[in-house]
């Protein structure tokens, strides 16, 4: 085996230019895959951190009728806050949120919205609910930046809010935008108005009730109180949608990297086909010298696998400094909102050792595999034909 490896290495060295080009092409694909995956992981982590801060917290209890994807459930999705939660709420470790459907009229027109009542001044999630304490008699409202743009309002503007009252009558109130929050998390922004919990509950006739109970980030799960009629959604579950969404958005990008990688593999495949054809007399000689055809297949496969090794080394030479730099200084990321959520202006890609090692293994295995595909034919080549310089 060592003899074969030495011979394979020497064969590659004797064609230094072609070896260099092939390895470089492969290393590009290799580095790009790690780069792309690291970026995706960075985006994921940033998005998750934001989602936890603004929305998910340490998990949420959902009133059993609540389905955030079905607007029609909102009218029934509320229940009195379970008694076991009162101490947590008082200690500021959980916050009740009441969700009811409504409409809002602004200069732009009428639109259906989700009204969310939250305790003013709470610290469990990053919603700037302090603003909900003010209002000068008008109902104070906090909206996200996207929602403010949709409504064409800014802080201080008034909006007309309608919702269903205690006797199913339509209640209409005037609200004033107390604050516009800049948040990258769309699930607390688009299509919703944040109101003081007590005022919303009073208007809807749902005093003491809530739809969601959000626990502060990091709250130990085994200390959560029992809540019959409420369903606990762990952070992992709540974030899985997000991960999936980011995954789909990045498929397009990944395709590019994969194509690049496949092209590099194709170059190796080509080189192999050509090299096996050109060296058939050599193949016959190796068999005459006492190698089995199986060993010759291994030899040619090793040559291809060595491209992978060279690509990994080459990739490390320029890839590692690049990754370390990006990991420290981040990468500016314009147009982040096209991801379905806004990102901070600087992205910090995350290059885990698992990613790097996994990709390296992938490159080695893929290179050996495409080298082996054409090399397989050697096993069926008759040594006598090979020595005559022919294919059977």
């Amino acid at each position, binding site marked *: 085996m060592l*003899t074969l490896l030495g*011979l394979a290495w*020497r064969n590659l060295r004797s064609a230094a230019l072609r070896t260099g080009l092939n390895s470089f092409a492969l290393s590009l694909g290799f580095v790009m895959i790690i780069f792309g995956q690291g970026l995706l992981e960075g985006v994921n982590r940033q998005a998750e951190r934001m989602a936890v801060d603004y929305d998910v917290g340490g998990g949420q209890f959902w009133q059993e009728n609540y389905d955030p994807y079905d607007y029609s459930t909102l009218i029934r999705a509320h229940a009195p806050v379970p008694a076991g939660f009162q101490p947590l709420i008082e200690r500021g470790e959980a916050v009740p949120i009441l969700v009811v459907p409504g409409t809002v009229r602004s200069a732009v027109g009428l639109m259906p919205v989700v009204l969310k009542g939250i305790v003013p001044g709470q610290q469990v999630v990053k919603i700037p609910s302090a603003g909900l304490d003010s209002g000068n008699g008008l109902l104070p409202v906090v909206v996200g930046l996207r929602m403010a743009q949709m409504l064409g309002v800014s802080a201080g503007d008034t909006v007309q809010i309608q919702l269903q009252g205690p006797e199913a009558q339509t209640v209409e109130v005037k609200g004033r935008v107390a604050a516009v929050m800049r948040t990258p998390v769309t699930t607390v922004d688009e299509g919703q108005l944040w109101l003081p919990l007590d005022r919303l509950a009073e208007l809807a006739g749902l005093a003491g009730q809530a739809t969601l109970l959000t626990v502060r980030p990091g709250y130990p799960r085994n200390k959560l109180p029992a809540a019959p009629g409420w369903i606990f959604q762990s952070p992992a579950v709540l974030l899985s949608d997000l991960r999936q969404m980011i995954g789909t958005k990045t498929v397009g990008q990944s395709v590019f990297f994969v194509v690049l990688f496949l092209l590099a593999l194709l170059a190796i495949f080509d080189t192999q086909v050509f090299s096996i054809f050109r060296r058939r*007399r050599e193949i016959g000689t190796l068999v*005459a*010298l*006492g*190698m089995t055809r199986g*060993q010759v297949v291994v030899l040619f496969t090793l040559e291809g696998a060595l491209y992978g090794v060279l690509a990994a080394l080459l990739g490390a030479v320029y890839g590692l400094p690049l990754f370390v730099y990006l990991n420290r200084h981040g990468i500016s990321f314009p147009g982040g909102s096209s991801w379905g959520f806004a990102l901070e202006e600087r992205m910090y890609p995350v290059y885990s050792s698992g990613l790097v090692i996994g990709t390296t293994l992938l490159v080695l295995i893929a290179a050996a595999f495409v080298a082996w595909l054409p090399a397989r034919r050697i096993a069926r080549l008759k040594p006598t034909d090979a020595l005559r310089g022919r294919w059977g």
Partner: protein
Amino acid sequence: MLNMPDNNLIVETVELVKRYPMGRQELVALKGVSLRFCRGEFSGVIGPSGSGKTTLLNIIGTLDVPSSGSVRVLGETVERLSPAAAARLRSRHIGFVFQTFNLLPVYTAYENVEFPLLLLGMGAQERRRRVMAALEWVGLADRANSRPAQLSGGECQRVAIARAMVKEPALVLADEPTANLDAENSHHILETMQKLNQELGTTFIFSTHDDKVIGYLRRRIRLVDGRVAADETG
């Protein structure tokens, strides 16, 4: 020769037939060849082009199998050997010399000669000693570090002979070893092989239609159209 004891018998072919399918018909390259070669012979298969010389040598060298008939090489029945066993037999006991030299282009002369020993798994020291000795035999010790591209045809063939001889095989098969060489180089390599045959007792079987080679042979087997037409010693 025929009444030599059996343990001196190195190669024995019995009614060897080799057919090649050629479309609908078939070409019969060997039509019942029965021959015996004994230890230390310096013999050659001679005959016109297409008479089956290479085919016969390839079968004796376990690179091919007969369509019918039987071959015994060093006590092994070739047509029954597994590919791995045949490879082992070649690796240990059979050396090849080709018309086209067939050196590995990326190896130096030294490394080319060393290669069969690496396949045998021989230790580094023993390898070095043997390679240098083999290069001495062919008079190329000073070109050990040259690559085939830097050597003349005659020198390449001498390296190839060193490569075939380095493991001191029982049998060397040389298929038209002088066909690509000029007269002077032909005589040089033939003298080298004759010397090795005498000093080491190695059995040589040539295939040739070169009169220079024929002049050195102690036994000439004339093959005509796949049949043995004459077998003369002396």
